[in-house]
């Protein structure tokens, strides 16, 4: 994929500033007293420019240790070795970086080569086994780093790539990290995470999305249209018809931005015990670097997860009503098309200026 200069990309910065930042501020406020003792833990795919990290630092969400000046609580994941080093240089003192393919790290499972083996041991390993063991080691490090207060899965690529089916590696990873959020306790006070924020990014490109996955997503949304009168009414009101497969053909981005959150909310509410509040879903277009005159879209969703009390130990099912309510709300609110908003000169100017200031403050800090 062609590299985008994120220091000048105002489309993405709109999402940072008006989507991510308010959600982070609310999370910071919500965890209040705890954050004074334990720094907020932020997991990001910040790319080589690390704009989000420095925006959050500037806004006081991420803080530097008073004594050492280290930026606390920043964890990042990056697949590209070169970008990895640059991020480490920019942040200067991240808590930890995880190098490798995110899905491979998260979904690592032992096989006969790696079972009861460690990468950093006295045992010599071939290059191919070392590669596997490396993922095992990073998997362990990442697992131990959980939970986080803010997870920014600003990943690259489509959620359901061709020929992977609906349970694609990225979705599987997402499920796994939600499980880890559920099971882990904060390292300093050994208390479970009660609330966290999840930013999810996905490319939207029907030509690169697995057909069976699209069909299953269509079926899931159709169920709501068929069984929930309020949802159906909002759907028709918004799109002018009730056929979900038609929406998937005519307006794939809006369809996807409705269907993916549904999957996530269902999983969180019914399997893992998290109540979800969905914020706006942002969409904008990018030129396809490999095909002239072709575009794809990028979706960013903002959601807050709150642990459901006594989950799994109740006879009633409060999630059912909640699920319908959230899904209806998403359908009702629709998506925010960032391309349209940033057409306004004052918005462009303001975003460009803000971005420039963040980059300046980032680079100023690095000067000796």
């Amino acid at each position: 994929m062609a590299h985008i200069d994120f220091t000048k990309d105002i489309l993405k910065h709109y999402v940072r500033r008006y989507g991510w930042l308010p959600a982070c501020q609310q999370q910071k406020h919500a965890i209040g007293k705890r954050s004074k003792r334990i720094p907020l833990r932020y997991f990001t795919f910040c790319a080589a420019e690390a704009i989000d990290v420095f925006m959050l630092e500037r806004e006081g969400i991420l803080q530097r240790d008073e004594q050492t000046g280290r930026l606390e609580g920043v964890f990042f994941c990056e697949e590209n070795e070169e970008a990895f080093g640059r991020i480490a240089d920019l942040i200067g003192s991240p808590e930890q970086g995880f190098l490798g393919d995110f899905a491979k790290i998260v979904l690592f499972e032992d096989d006969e080569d790696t079972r009861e083996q460690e990468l950093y041991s006295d045992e010599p390993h071939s290059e191919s086994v070392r590669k596997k063991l490396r993922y095992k080691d990073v998997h362990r490090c990442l697992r131990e780093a959980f939970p986080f207060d803010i997870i920014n899965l600003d990943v690259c690529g489509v959620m359901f790539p061709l020929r992977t089916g609906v349970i694609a590696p990225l979705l599987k990873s997402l499920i796994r990290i939600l499980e880890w959020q559920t099971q882990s306790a904060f390292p300093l006070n050994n208390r479970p995470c009660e609330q966290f924020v999840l930013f999810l990014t996905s490319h939207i490109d029907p030509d690169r999305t697995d057909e069976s996955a699209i069909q299953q997503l269509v079926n899931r949304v159709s169920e709501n249209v068929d069984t929930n009168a309020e949802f159906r009414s909002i759907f028709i009101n918004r799109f002018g018809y009730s056929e979900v497969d038609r929406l998937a053909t005519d307006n794939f981005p809006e369809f996807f931005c409705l269907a993916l959150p549904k999957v996530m909310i269902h999983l969180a509410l019914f399997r893992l015990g998290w109540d979800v509040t969905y914020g706006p879903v942002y969409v904008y277009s990018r030129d396809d670097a490999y095909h002239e005159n072709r575009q794809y879209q990028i979706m960013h969703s903002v959601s807050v997860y709150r642990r459901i009390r006594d989950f799994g130990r109740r006879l009633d099912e409060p999630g059912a009503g909640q699920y319908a309510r959230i899904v209806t709300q998403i359908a009702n609110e629709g998506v925010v098309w960032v391309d349209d908003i940033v057409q306004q000169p004052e918005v462009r100017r303001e975003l460009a200026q803000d971005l420039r200031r963040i980059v300046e403050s980032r680079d100023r800090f690095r000067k000796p």
Partner: protein
Amino acid sequence: MAWEDIVVSSKIVGHVSAGIYRSAGGALKELVSNAFDANATRVVVTTNWPSFDIVTCYDNGAGITLQEFRRVMKGGIGESSKRADTDVTLELGRPIIGVLGIGILGIAQVCHEFKVISHHPETSTAFQAIVRLMDYLREKVDDVDIARTDDKEFEIGQFEVEEIKYDPSQAGTYIIAADMRSAFVRKFRESPEVPLPSKFSSFLDIIHSKRSVKEFGDYWQMVLELATACPIPYITDQSPFQWDRVKTPPEFRKKFEGLAQSLRDYQFEVVVDGLSLRKPNSYPHPLVRRDGEPMRGQVFPIDKEVKVYGRPLKLLGYIYMQNGQAIEPIELRGLLIRIRNVAVGAYDPTFLKYPNIEGPRFNWLSGEIYVESGLEHALNIDRDSFNEMHPHFVALQQSVHSLLQEVFLEAGRGVEERSRVRQKNERDRRLGALRHLLSQELGGNYQLVETEETQLPLEVDTKYRRVLINTQSTLWPRARNKRELAQLVAIAFEISMLVPESERRERFYKLLSQLLNL
């Protein structure tokens, strides 16, 4: 892309066999030296603390071309052409400090393979290469009988290269090691999980608080080693000394400040995991002695220019002696030799094998010698040690040892002086306490007066409120401590004689107890 063999000359093989660097810091030092030679102004090393599973080294220097890289890989490692003309200077007045390709052997000791990416502004070209050295290189080369082999070159690994698009914003060289060796990672992970601060002054405060940086493990040791070794400015910018706290000839101060200025002029910054390094020397340290007195020190300059066997040897440096208190951490004790501003090895606590036994006084010393010319040929290829038979090394050793004799002489004088001052202070304190006690017991302000005019060795003059001690009395013991003790007993006795007989004994013992506890 295709894999090509990395070959080195047989003379290099022997050094590989010997293990070219003793530590990770030593290996990284050579990469930093290469960056310095490439006119970089910033070198950034990252280790992914606390995982230590990826080490990167980026510099913004001139980069290297694919052709040059290939030439180095094909037998150019360790060749001396880079520094053939020893007077060559680079931009910003920098001397050449590195040796071609040696950094590659160094980094290979901490990883199985690594990637090199270089964007070369002069030719607007770029390439990336993967370098893979043999896993059991040392064992393999041990099997080679270098003396008997006719081969001039020896294969030590493989590399593959490809040209990539030149990007001016990425000018420089980037080395990425993501397949780290087990020994390196395990040692570093065993270190206590203490993150580096982001200010070097904080780093220094922390290491000064410990007897040894070893307490923080290999990671902190590596950082200190790099800070010590690299051609970067001192923490205070000016010099290692707070001049108002150290005794030194004024002409040396001027000269040394000039040297410190040249380090600043290089405009070279080395950053490790967000910490911008400085030379860690700052004396005196701590600023207050354990006894509460201000810490002071003395600087003994070395400023020498001689010819040894017709070749010039020019030295500028110092041995700093801290007044009666050890320098901490111990890693800063000893003597550090810098050739072209780069440290050769670590601080040598033996001061180039000084033959005399001086005990703990060695702990008060820290020195640096900048070799401005000469000694280059005495350097072993690991750039970490010297050929001790080389005439330049011998001359350096003699200079240092001769200076050390002066240093230890002065140290002895200092000990005597401090002992004298300490004794005087103690005596003054006890006298003050004695006066106070006398005033409490007898009322009013009594003075202790040394005289030769009393008949008895000690008399209490209640009229003029004086305790008269006849210092010439032959009854006093000659040894000072016994004499003082006897005088205290006498004072207790004379004062107890002033009260009615029935109370005397009790008073005497009470007073004696009080006086002996002063």
